């Protein structure tokens, strides 16, 4: 991303961001609520109100100012190899867990290999194996999050964007979830995890960036003095 600004309507959320992800990298994005982490992910897939600047993915330009409606180009962008697990799980409540996962296999090869990929996802999230036929709307919060993240993993994507995987989950579950995420072998893909809870990510990501008021600060760690003392891991 180069000089990317984005916002909704009259509000500008991102201010001239510059950001690069290399293949095989796992990046943590930390920051308080409302500072632009979700917006940054939405900008990459083209779901903000407006955006400026250039985003280059696998050599293709996918950024730029959109004059069409929100999300009109998202399917195309996503199909070029980006998988996103949005904040708050946009899962399909009326479909079964299996169908939810299947819908995530939207890239070229992924659909044909969906059985294999699904088994791989079930390995990562064992509790889902018993619930394959269950309607997704009846799952608990943690299970729903697993479905959402699992669905993102079903796609054979080069870039995985995970937005706040621990939001609203009990500490034990969120630790397990983030740990599972960080253990996935990325190959030549990359993963960006946005989190509010820094300790969950520290030590597990190649780089941790801070997001404050729409601007990125490199290699956080101690620099985020504004944050309250780190959340205790139970």
């Amino acid at each position, binding site marked *: 991303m180069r000089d990317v600004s984005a916002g909704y309507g009259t509000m500008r959320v991102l201010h001239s961001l510059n950001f690069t992800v290399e293949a095989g990298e796992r990046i943590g994005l930390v920051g308080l609520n409302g500072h632009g982490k979700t917006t940054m992910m939405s900008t990459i897939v083209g779901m903000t109100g407006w955006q400026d600047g250039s985003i280059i993915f696998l050599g293709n330009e996918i950024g730029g100012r959109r004059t069409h*409606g929100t*999300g009109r180009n998202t399917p195309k962008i996503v199909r070029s190899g980006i998988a996103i697990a949005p904040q708050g799980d*946009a*899962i*399909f*409540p*009326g479909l079964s867990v299996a169908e939810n996962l299947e*819908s995530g296999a*939207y890239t070229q090869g992924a659909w044909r290999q969906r059985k294999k990929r699904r088994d791989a996802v079930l390995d990562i999230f064992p509790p889902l194996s018993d619930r394959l036929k269950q309607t997704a709307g009846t799952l608990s919060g943690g299970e729903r999050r697993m479905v959402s993240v699992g*669905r993102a993993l079903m796609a054979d994507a080069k870039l995985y964007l995970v937005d706040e995987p621990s939001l609203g989950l009990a500490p034990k579950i969120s630790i397990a979830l983030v740990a599972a995420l960080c253990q996935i072998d990325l190959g030549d893909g990359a993963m960006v995890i946005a989190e509010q809870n820094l300790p969950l990510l520290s030590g597990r990501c190649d780089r941790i960036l801070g997001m404050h008021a729409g601007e990125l600060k490199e290699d956080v760690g101690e620099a985020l003095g504004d944050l309250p003392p780190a959340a205790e891991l139970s």
Partner: protein
Amino acid sequence: MIELLFSALVLASMYGLVAIGISLTWSSIGMLNLAQGFVFTAGGYGAYEFVQWMGKHQHIHTGNVLMVGVVLVGMLTAALAGLFVGLLAFLPLHDRVNFPVRGLIATLAISVIGTQLFIILFGPQNKPLPQLFGIKRFHIGTHGIAYGQLGTIVVAALVMGIVTFWMRTSRRGLQMRAMMMNPIGANMVGVSVRTTGMVTLAISGALSGLASVMLAQTFFVSPRSGVSPLTVGLIISLAGGLGSLPGTVAASVLLGLAEAATARYTKQSLVPFVQFGLVIAILAFRPRGLGGVLEDVRE
């Protein structure tokens, strides 16, 4: 009694086909397609033109092939008409403000224009279509049932079954159902609202085309032949629950029965009242229709 059942099922199948189309369109892309009557009539006229063309060219006369061809042409024309509607009313408006109302009005406008164009092109008279299934009757006990009726019911049920099956198992069907539940989420898994919407419109068009060709067995193709199926189709979608295929089928059977029974035992003129009353009764107990599957997901 048997005759009653058969006529009811015939009505149910034809209304059901149109209603499924409307229901699908509404629940997947949020547009109430009031141009479905136009699409219906277009299918009828497409089939008619095909028959005229065949007659002129003295081609294959083997009855069955011709009949299948008529049906397919009718469905194809109607599907194209559905795509045309999508081009004018859905694609430009779907992400603009106030889409449901504007889409409704746009489809109404297309319907108005289309009806008049049909009058201009084909004249206001009724046009007949040949009997698809022959005019023979068969007998169950003492009752005579036309092959046409049986054929209609079977074909309609088959097609409805195929569509339901396809929706549940195919990839495109999965995408359509996903879009019904959560359009934003669907966007994020690469389901393009525009493409899927057009596919939906084409399918609902094809279904209406099928209904149109089969309805033209008993009635004729005329510029206004789409009005009544549209109205009843809308009512059935309402009663069945917009978006629920099983609910729509159930509702169409119920209303078909109601119409047949009313016509047989009381006056024909009371049919609309009974249907209307039945729908109001259903909605009074279940405001979301019989299906109620998509209860809180999309209004």
